[in-house]
């Protein structure tokens, strides 16, 4: 297969970029939702104490 290295390099870069962005977005969403839940619980506890 002529020039196979260029073809595989292209698909490798594409996979790395697209999967990397997908995972970063997925874990970013999970982290923000966890922070939001924790902040909401903290607020509720403070209100209940007062």
């Amino acid at each position, binding site marked *: *297969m*002529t*020039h*196979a290295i*260029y*073809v595989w*390099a*292209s*698909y490798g*870069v*594409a996979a790395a*970029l*697209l999967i990397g*962005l*997908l995972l970063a*977005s*997925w874990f*970013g*969403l999970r982290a*923000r*939702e966890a*922070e*939001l839940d924790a*902040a*909401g619980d*903290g*607020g509720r506890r*403070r*209100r209940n104490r*007062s």
Partner: protein
Amino acid sequence: MHRFANPARFQRIAGAVLPWSAAATVLLFAAGLWYALLASPPDYQQGETVRIMYVHVPSAWMAMFVYANLAIAGAVGLVWKHPLADLAAKAIAPIGATFTALCLVTGSLWGQPMWGTWWVWDARLTSVLILFFLFLGHIALTNAFDDATRGSRAAAVLALVGAVNLPIIKFSVDWWNTLHQPASITRLDAPAVDPSMLRPLLLMALGFLFYFITVAILRIRAEIAARKLRTLRLAQSIDAPAMPAGRRA
């Protein structure tokens, strides 16, 4: 349009769309990769390197599509001041930058064996490089201010001004004498591509489109959560009673 710009309504619609768009992405990429790498023939001139086109062309189309959406979101944010438009623009700019980077890298990997060079300062290549810098500028401007609204406004102006680059990218191969070949799919007459090569190209393009929808939903939801978090923390800091001086750390 105003009805759909409500964050709560967006969350409901996005929740319903996300599993379907994720499933469509996986299926279209699976079918597209099968045709692109195994079932489609090599080109009679380019040989196996034609397979790079099945990644390069969809990423170029999506880079321009995402930038057009960025400019629309910028206009909506500036004119109607919809909070979702600013959040959407902030969320999709990194996706557009990724597609543009992928287009430039795969173009370079195709150029070396076919043209004998990684890069030329040709009108098409240069205008796409400018598109990449516009995406980076948008990301930088959005995050450059302590006040998120000011950052979004400045980035929206950049997105609108930069939209002039889209027709330059599209028509650069017609307006100037470029090394990059002219359009072969988006022509007024029939596409100049054999159906055996058009099939993987269109399947991969649809895969890229559904990938964009999936990742955009995840990122917009993360931005909505971040904004809620800021509002909640602000409200809690106002509600919290002033602590006596002796108990402060």
